[in-house]
């Protein structure tokens, strides 16, 4: 069944993939190689001297129980961000798909948050949930709930998850909606005629047919949660209270770019690289099997 075009010879295929290879080499292999190289040293910030420490940076990191704890924090954070942003997006997309009137407006409004930069989104949420003057805090206060993410670790985690997931919902929504619209109406109508209710139709037809989109979004969202959320964390909590929201990538950022501990930061990014690589391989090997294209 495989439809593959095969090229004869070596040069033509090489030439065709060369631009892609060049981009990968310049923007991925070179920096990744640099990170691995630097992770073996303790350099001074100005690049005046480098102390060879071998695997010393890794030993230092892995023997630090606070660093090890941030693996758990990262896992919790990434799962929550992915589940929340994909779950809400799917729900909204299903609703939008059923709309007939005003669907254009509805969609446009839902796509807007994607245009907001993460750090700005962070500030917006921070204002709403400010412990003393935030609007949401005030309403929660009326309900008798004392919101204080500055000291309460769970609330801080909740807040950064919401702020990180919020902008992502738009992106996921777009893909889910496109995926839903690509499902042939005839199939669904046939099921409806056979007496399948909405929920049954969704579970047995729509969701499986949507699986390529879901799988793609799963990979993309996990990568997002792992790598692109430090702006939100930086503006809202700076990793606190205590270490409740210190995820791996935030620590890479703050140790490297705020504190100039480049050796440790490089070692951390190597660790992160390995984790995300392993995760992606896992996803492609095990989850993709359940995907129907």
């Amino acid at each position, binding site marked *: 069944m495989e439809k593959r075009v095969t090229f004869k010879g070596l040069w033509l295929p090489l030439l065709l993939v060369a631009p892609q290879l060049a981009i990968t080499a310049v923007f991925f292999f070179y920096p990744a190689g640099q990170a691995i190289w630097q992770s073996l040293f*303790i*350099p*001074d*910030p*100005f*690049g*005046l*001297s480098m*102390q060879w*420490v071998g695997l010393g940076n890794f030993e*230092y990191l892995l023997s*630090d129980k*606070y660093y090890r704890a941030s693996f758990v924090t990262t896992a919790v954070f990434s799962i929550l961000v992915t589940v929340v942003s994909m779950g809400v997006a799917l729900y909204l997309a299903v609703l939008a798909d059923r709309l007939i009137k005003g669907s254009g407006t509805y969609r446009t409004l839902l796509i807007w948050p994607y245009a907001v930069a993460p750090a700005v989104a962070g500030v917006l949420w921070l204002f709403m949930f400010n*412990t*003393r*003057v935030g609007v949401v805090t005030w309403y929660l206060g009326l309900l008798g709930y004392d919101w204080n993410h*500055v*000291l*309460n*670790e769970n609330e801080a985690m909740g807040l950064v998850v919401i702020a990180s997931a919020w902008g992502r919902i738009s992106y996921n929504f777009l893909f889910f909606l496109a995926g839903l619209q690509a499902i042939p109406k005839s199939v669904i109508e046939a099921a409806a005629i056979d007496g399948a209710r909405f929920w049954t139709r969704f579970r047995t037809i729509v969701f499986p047919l949507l699986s390529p989109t879901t799988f793609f979004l799963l990979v993309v969202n996990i990568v997002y949660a792992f790598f692109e959320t430090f702006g939100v964390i930086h503006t809202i909590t*700076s*990793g*606190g*209270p*205590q*270490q409740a929201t210190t995820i791996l990538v935030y620590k890479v950022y*703050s*140790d490297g*770019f*705020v*504190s*100039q*501990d480049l*050796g*440790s930061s490089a070692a951390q990014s190597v660790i992160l690289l390995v984790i995300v690589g392993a995760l992606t391989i896992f996803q492609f090997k095990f989850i993709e099997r359940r995907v129907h294209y």
Partner: protein
Amino acid sequence: MKLQTSLLALAAVTMTANTAAAQTEIDFWHAFTGRLGELVAEQVETFNASQSDYVVNATHKGNYSETLNAGIAAFRAGEQPDILMVFEVGTATMMNAKGAVKPVYEVMADAGADFDADAFIGAVKGYYTTAGGEMLSLPFNSSTPVLWVNRDALSEAGIDPDTDLSTWQKVGETLDALKEAGHDCPLTTAWQSWIHLENTSAYHDVPFATQDNGFAGVDTELALNGPVQTQHIEAMGQWAKDGKFIYTGRRNEGGANFRGGECALFTESSAGYAGIKAEAEFDFDVRPLPYWEGVEGAPQNTIIGGASLWVMEGQSDEEYKGVAEFLNFLSSPEVQAKWHQDTGYLPITSAAADLTREQGFYDENPGTDVAVKQMTANEPTANSKGIRLGSFDQIRGIIDEELEAVWAGDKSAQEALDSAKERGDALLRRFEQSAR
């Protein structure tokens, strides 16, 4: 038409080249925006207008960390500015970057400039000089923590607004009274590590770190878990538990609460003055930072925060001459006195303080000299000269985390400070290795 444009362009290029040849350009990277940015721009304009040999180009490079990063990245690319503003926490990093920075005393000596390090206030100078008293960077904006008081809030709670708040014991009594009167936010703070550990240590003449707080060598260890600091954090922790001390965040988030009239007492930098004066719609005053009565040697003097100007290596002699002239201009009494009065930062020289007094500023704005007095009351000791630790930024992060554990009631003061020491020492060992 085309020819005309290119001729014009050529003329423009030649003209710029001419001015460039006549005037040496000096690049100055700083971290100030808003009102402070305007004031820096004004200083630079005044300097540029005052002479014709040099032109200073001031550029804003982001916040303190970003400016330091920009300087480091530029140095690595061989494009460093002549002058880089670095916050006090980055001092050890800069000091150890031999080959990247040119000490100010050298710049001044090479340029043959008239420069007297002793003109600077002791506690300011001490932070930025070698053990031998040679000035490495020029103090620029320096502040020190003080106690801001909302007088109206005290009156409303039935407390005499002139009540004695000089010691933490007295502050404790006032907090009790405020709480009893139903006040929601008796005390809040900004910069908890700087004020409640670093300054508390210096003010009570106990070490924050061994080796004279890091001045005597990089083989230093934290000593912030001593009895004085532990007692202070324990008291603060108890106040947090009783709802008398409200924690608002790691930076100066509490400023909004104080300026909005919500909090009665606020420990914050003296440089909070400009903002409080502009926004507070209540009667406020400034008091010296409280100390614990009964601790021997207290009150010693508080230490500074803020930034200093570092001169970078690799520029021409001509540029260094200009740098020397510009730095001398910045530390002149007139410039400093104006800066001090506009911002609430300390006057960094005794001459600027005297000039401010002569101009009658302290009489018109009572309390603005509290910080100066607090800094200069005593000759700094080895414990109160300043703090010079590598990876200090990360250490402050660790301290923030540990203090949050105390405020949340998860750890006792002793546990938290012991843990901060242990984690901070690991970073200090790494820094020692990189500075070797």
